[in-house]
């Protein structure tokens, strides 16, 4: 038997787990993680996982993360972030920590993280 507090705790915990099934996105932000052969070799999976973890654990809505094919950039793993109505921004040489910064500053804040951008 659960109390109201228990039910609310389950809700808190579960919400992040089902967030990525949200289909009702409007004007959404797209994140593409390059997962070609080179990307996979250099750790694209970790970057993809970091994006999903960061977006869902912070319950950020309207972001769709996609596994994409290879991107023609040198320093992989790479990812592309497209804010609605904005030009795509390609980040290179990513790590899980850099993903956190991108989510904070670019996806939430709207300002691209210039130091990670492909030169």
């Amino acid at each position, binding site marked *: *038997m*659960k*109390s*109201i507090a*228990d*039910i609310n705790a*389950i*809700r808190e915990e*579960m*919400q992040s*787990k*089902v967030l*990525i*099934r949200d*289909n*009702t*996105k*409007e004007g*959404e932000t*797209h994140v593409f*993680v390059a*997962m070609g052969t080179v990307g*996979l070799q250099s750790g*694209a999976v970790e970057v*993809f*996982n970091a994006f*999903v*973890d960061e977006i*869902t654990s912070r319950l950020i809505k309207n972001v*769709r*993360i*996609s*596994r*994409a*094919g290879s991107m023609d950039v040198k320093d992989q793993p790479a990812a592309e972030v497209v804010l609605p109505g904005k030009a795509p921004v390609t980040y290179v040489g990513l790590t899980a920590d850099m993903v956190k910064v991108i989510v904070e500053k670019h996806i939430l804040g709207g300002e691209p993280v210039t130091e990670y951008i492909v030169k």
Partner: protein
Amino acid sequence: MYRSHVLVCGGTGCHSNNSANILKAFNEEIAKANLTADVQTVQTGCFGLCAVGPVVIVYPEGAFYSCVKVEDVPEIVSEHLVKGRLVERLLYKEKATGKTVKALSETNFYKKQTRVVLRNCGVINPENIDEYIAMDGYQALIKVLTKMQPQEVIDEVLASGLRGRGGAGFPTGRKWQFTKDAVGDVKYVACNADEGDPGAFMDRSVLEGDPHAVIEAMAIAAYAIGAQQGYVYVRAEYPIAVRRLQIAIDQAKEYGLLGKNILGTGFNFDLEIRLGAGAFVCGEETALMTSIEGNRGEPRVRPPFPAHKGLFGKPTVLNNVETYANIAQIILKGADWFKSMGTEKSRGTKVFALGGKIVNTGLVEIPMGTTLREVIEDIGGGVPNGKKFKAAQTGGPSGGCIPAEHFDIPIDYDNLISIGSMMGSGGMIVMDEDNCMVDIAKFFLTFTVDESCGKCTPCRIGNKRLLEYLDKITSGKATMQDLEDMEKLCYYIKDNSLCGLGQTAPNPVLSTLRYFRDEYIAHIRDKKCPAGVCKSLLQYKIIKDNCIGCGMCQRQCPANAISRTDYIAPGKKLAAMEIDPSKCVKCGACMSTCKFKAIIKE
């Protein structure tokens, strides 16, 4: 933490197309690829687009794979989940264009829909209460139990303008008010899940895809009217729905959301399933309650209405599954939110089960007031094979048809009644030019004649006689006098039957008579079936000048009705064939095999 979710539709349509094995194959392949910790597989309820099932959706991309087979699973796992490449050949065609997968909500099928009742169907695992809780599940119950008085709950439902989704459209709040005000120490809440209309499957899909929504709403209703016991009456013919509902009830009990002292608030409510044997008449409220009591499912006279004397003679609220599925949302988001959807007198949304001659067979949920054209052309994708839309039947065997001339009518309770049909539970069967309307009326009447419980004479005998008139018409033996007598009989049955089944049984006949009387007259006077459906009025003929004498038709004919003549058509080398009408069984095998369009039916 799972980074990818693979959702496999476990609704009835996809399930019968092997979706359970698809799920199993996913689990095996994912284990083989060492992704068990990263990828979660979920069996969900119906996504709605049954026409392209079995359906699999992979998140976070939201890739919508259609018509998936077990053999496709290894490819989806190795390409999509491991390498991140979408399997384009399986993507739903409308979503396959361009680099990004279009959001589901952007496809034509979903764009014009508003999903309130179906919001969790195809999103959560119906067998996992935690996922329902994540979607604000049971928050409405908590709100009601901790912050609202029973009367406030009823006022909110009343203010929302919610009307019963089972067919007649009685205001739900008023029903609750009557039952609350009724004198009695014991009261009941019941749920009508005895969905029997041919072509309707929305209640089943809600139970299969989101059973907790019904449980939560019934608990709210019980709190509002002062009941402690509830029953869900569901037909045993819905095994998946029954199983998932039972799982949901057990989970709710385990969490203390059903039973004694719910969530420590002192409110008691218990819920039981009662299985029906699949009798159509048990969807009628008094027959349903008689059946729950353990008696033969026969209706009784109203009044007294169930709100005063229902189950076991006690005041009872009986609502349909879809009605209940709206309740939690109304409590959480408020009556004003609900009122903002729909039309003046019909608020909210309605789920329709699209079937018949339509491209996107499936479940759709639209705001009331959407036009029939939008439902059929935009959402439903229109009539397949370039055929012309003729009519849509709503309300099943109790309803009527809507002809093409009313294509732009906004769908709500009152508009449908004004054009001689009804909302019903929401089956919508689309018919094209190849459907004979007399035959359609006969189909529905055959159903009601079979399902009549036999208690009252007008329904038991009247409908049987009515069916005999239709038989006479479709076999070309009727007179114009018969047509007149038949129409009179229809009104007699409507006026004198005991329950809704008999009172509405002649509706398909009356509405086809209203809009397609010329077809009836063609059958009677000209002995012709304009759509070429009624076999007794058909004749297959060979146009001799088109016949090259290949003899294919003769080989296909099961009745040896085709023979060779002496006539050789100009420019042909072999003698033409002909059909002996006295031997012909009108199976049409010759016509479908002829490559030269030499065989016609008229």
